[in-house]
């Protein structure tokens, strides 16, 4: 594939699953994301055998619920991240996960290819900005976003004061925002 197609490749796989029950698209999605989700679950404290089962579940859920994927609002990685996160909350905390009420929407057509590429490309820029972060900041972001540890737990593990952890994460986020030129919505 050419570079320009890359950001949308997984979004398109989900759309093919939704519209055509495309098994080849599912197999490709599975091979790319199942190991990442398994790794995410292990990093956040799940035992490897259970993490393997849960990664299976998360991808099976993506197959069943592909119709809920909205490529104008999320990349495939983001959508799968939210499914995997909810599964992790389920296992680790045995509690419900209240979700915001969906916004009402009309019977909208699929976003056109340009709109879809816009969001997927922005996601790719974000990925590049993440790679460009200094290693220490990137590690902290990964710890925090994988829900591996709360900020206080990261502080306890690294021996750094909580304030330092928070300001480093903030600094990393500011760098990412700057890289994307994304304005804070507030």
């Amino acid at each position, binding site marked *: 594939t050419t570079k320009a197609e890359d950001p949308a490749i997984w979004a398109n796989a989900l759309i093919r699953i939704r519209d055509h029950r495309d098994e080849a698209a599912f197999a490709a999605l599975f091979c790319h994301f199942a190991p990442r989700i398994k790794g995410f679950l292990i990093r956040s404290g799940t035992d490897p055998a259970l993490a393997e089962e849960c990664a299976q579940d998360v991808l099976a859920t993506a197959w069943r619920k592909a119709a809920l994927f909205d490529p104008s609002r999320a990349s495939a990685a983001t959508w799968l991240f939210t499914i995997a996160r909810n599964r992790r909350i389920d296992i680790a905390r045995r509690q419900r996960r209240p979700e915001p009420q969906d916004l009402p929407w009309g019977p909208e057509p699929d976003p056109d290819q340009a709109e879809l590429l816009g969001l997927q490309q922005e996601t790719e820029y974000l990925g590049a900005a993440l790679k460009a972060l200094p290693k220490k900041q990137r590690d902290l972001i990964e710890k925090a*976003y994988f829900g591996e540890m709360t900020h206080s737990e990261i502080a306890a593990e690294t021996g750094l004061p909580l304030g330092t952890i928070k300001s480093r994460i903030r600094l990393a986020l500011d760098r990412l925002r700057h890289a994307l030129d994304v304005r804070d919505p507030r």
Partner: protein
Amino acid sequence: MTHSPYNPKHHLTDDLIAAYATGTLAEAVNLIVATHVSLCDSCRAAVEAHETLGGAVLEDSAGAAMGDDALDRAMAAIRGTVPEARPIRLSADPAPDPVVPAPLAAYIGGLDRVRWRSLGMGVKQSILRTTPEATARLLYIPAGTAVPDHTHNGLELTLVLQGAYSDEDGHFARGDVEVADPSVNHMPVADMSQDCICLAVTDSPLRFNSFLPRLLQPLFRI
């Protein structure tokens, strides 16, 4: 995209939004975040931004090898299931409950089904069933009435569902959330115009300064 008709003025902190997106909050706190986000476009956008970053971290991560038969098992599993149909929702669908957003409705049903317990002076509360790390309660404050003066040992979040109240920190109306830390010693007073209903979440017991004898607090679970 359709926007919610509310533009709250008082929002969640970034820390809370990030922790909600990564999934490290107690259930009761998740509930109040999800309920505020249901009424607030800007916090919704902030949650989605953090989830986008979560997706980027996932994409960038090394991963752990799946078992040899993993793909075969996955293919066998999906062949037995049919993808769900696309939900069709029309803008003309009946409006959701005007007071209780969906995530809260999942806990209480409608307001008419809430079992209130009196705290005196017309103030009532109802504790919701969540995991115990934090407590979620509905508070009912008659128009013009003050919630007893109190302090907190920990975090207190208050989201206005109906009516409005004022305290030392400002005026809070439908959709607004007040984030009060232990240093705040406040006495919210409901506006005269309407009885005020709030969702309040605390991660430690409230300490009332005068109104209720401390001995009784465990009884009311406040």
